[in-house]
């Protein structure tokens, strides 16, 4: 079942929009993630799709049918909540069967569906337990089973894993993905965790400030973020954003010898933001021409994250796999070795990318070297 959002907005007082002009078409069988920081309206959007909150403006279509004003039960969907929303006075079986009984389904049909759903989430042994006697992961699996048992082909999930510990979250992530594939569900998954969104979803919608920032696949979002918000939201550690000033066309103001960037397209005079991911920077230990001071080092086993301050007092993060131990206050030479991005001054627009993958064609345009 496909879901289409057409210019959907939400406002409680008529003037302050919590969400404005959200449009997207979610295809049948797609795993669609909505991701954004807390308070960006992602849960509100999900509840509007579910029909729990009325839509202020715009249209919602499921399978081409306008459902904007239909009550939740007529939209044929299920929902899994962050805090499970199980009925504590019912055992696992009755929890899963709850919705089916409410829909007055035949008993034999209910039994088959419940058993099938519990089998899929490996909870057959816990059928008579109360939710209070289950662990967090098992409770969330009961909630999943409840969604599976219903014949709805659309499932909405509101941060279903954020109450679980890190290890369990990883496991459940792949379980949910597998189930979605197996059952052919159209799944809308709300999360604030960019890793969850990137690892699970076919497409991701990034929400911030009541607006859609970008809708694309994980790799496209990572490779060509449409603005600085998306760029810094995806990827750990965060992308470095370095402000630069071009005085005249292609002339830099800062004279200090520091980072060197190559930019493929010529740019007008003005202020820009350069985005460089920490893994696109490297530390040259041999060079004598140093341009930064180490301020902190996070050792993470396979690699370290070095926090450093450039000579123009810009803070940057560098990911390095170097085995040599750096020390705080040591002077280092930092250079750009990977792809980087040029954003407009307000961070709203991506103007230019220069990644390793464009190197082959880069000869077509003049390579300009900028330094700050």
């Amino acid at each position: 079942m496909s879901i289409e959002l057409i210019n959907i907005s939400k406002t409680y007082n008529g003037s302050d929009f919590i969400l404005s002009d959200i449009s997207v078409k979610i295809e049948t069988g797609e795993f669609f993630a909505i991701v954004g920081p807390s308070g960006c309206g992602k849960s509100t959007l999900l509840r509007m799709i579910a029909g729990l909150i009325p839509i202020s403006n715009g249209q919602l279509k499921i399978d081409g049918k306008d459902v904007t004003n239909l009550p939740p039960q007529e939209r044929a969907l299920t929902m899994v909540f962050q805090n499970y929303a199980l009925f504590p006075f019912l055992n696992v079986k009755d929890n899963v069967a709850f919705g089916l009984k409410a829909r007055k389904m035949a008993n034999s049909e209910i039994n088959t569906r419940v058993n099938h759903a519990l089998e899929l989430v490996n909870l057959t042994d816990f059928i008579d337990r109360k939710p209070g006697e289950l662990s967090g992961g098992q409770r969330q699996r009961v909630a999943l089973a409840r969604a599976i048992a219903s014949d709805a082909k659309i499932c909405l999930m509101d941060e279903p894993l954020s109450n679980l510990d890190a290890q369990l979250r990883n496991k459940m992530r792949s379980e949910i993905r597998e189930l979605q594939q197996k059952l052919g569900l159209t799944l809308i998954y709300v999360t604030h965790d960019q890793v969850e969104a990137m690892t699970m979803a076919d497409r991701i919608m990034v929400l911030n400030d009541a607006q859609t920032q970008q809708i694309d696949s994980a790799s496209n979002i990572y490779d060509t973020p449409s603005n600085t918000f998306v760029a810094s939201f995806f990827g750990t550690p965060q992308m470095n954003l370095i402000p630069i000033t071009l005085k005249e066309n292609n002339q830099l103001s800062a004279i200090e010898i520091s980072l060197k960037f190559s930019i493929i397209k010529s740019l007008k005079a003005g202020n820009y933001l350069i985005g460089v991911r920490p893994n696109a920077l490297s530390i040259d230990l041999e060079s004598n021409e140093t341009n930064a001071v180490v301020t902190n080092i996070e050792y993470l086993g396979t690699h370290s994250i070095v926090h450093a301050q450039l000579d123009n007092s810009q803070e940057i993060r560098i990911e390095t796999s170097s085995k040599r131990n750096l020390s705080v206050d040591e002077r280092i030479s930092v250079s750009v070795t990977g792809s980087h991005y040029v954003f407009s001054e307000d961070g709203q627009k991506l103007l230019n990318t220069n990644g390793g993958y464009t190197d082959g064609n880069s000869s077509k345009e003049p390579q300009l070297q900028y330094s700050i």
Partner: protein
Amino acid sequence: MTQYKKREKIQRVFHYSLLVILTIFIIIPFLLGFWTSLLPTADISKGALWSSHISLDNYVTAITQTPIIRYLFNSLLISLLTMFAQIIFCSMSAYSFVFLKFKGRDMLFYVFLATMMLPFEAEVIPNFTTVRDLGLLNHYAVMIIPFLTSAFGTFMLRQAFLQIPAELKEAGDIEGLSHWQYYYKVVMPYSRISVYTLAAYSFLSSWNQYLWPMLTTFSDNFRPVQDGLRQLQSQETFNNWGMIQASAAIIIIPTLIALFFGQHYFKSGLNEGAIK
């Protein structure tokens, strides 16, 4: 270390001695009452605490020669009806104060709550004229109808319903539960502890009513136990204290039973697992 342990020990001894003393003070009147119910009245009048005629005779007399059984039946009927009515009406009004959105809801609730501030004694005279004009005097109805609902019960259940996580309502909405279905399939079972507590509370307060039935009942056919007990005392010129004690012992039995069963539900933790 040992000094610390020693001090802890002294403290504990002190706590327990205090508790034991309090227990003795509280329980002695009960034991004394129960004990005298086993003694012949002649011995009680003499002020003796020991008698050679320990027997259940007083109980037999109370049951066979006074309308105590009728009183018990009256009280049981009145209390049960009041209890069920209060559970139904209080839970329904509490539900509307929590889950229905209508204009002036909170204002209405505060007005509702304000009636709790009014002491019952202040309502007695207007209520009496009302029930007299309705022709309800000396009937079960007069002891039930004014107590069909209670502001306290609504308040208590509203607080309980507010604890129900909002996601359960959303889950119910997605399954298409109507308000009525959500009320009896989710809200009532979820808040059963509070409902049982209200049941015990309303049963006991109805059972222990004294002033109102005294004013509104004139015959043994409708009189509840608490007033019946008073009746036993003044009916005869000679007070059969042994029998009165036996009757008193009989009428606290339902209270004890209610507390005994109620206690089982008052433990916490039965609602674990709805949410994290």
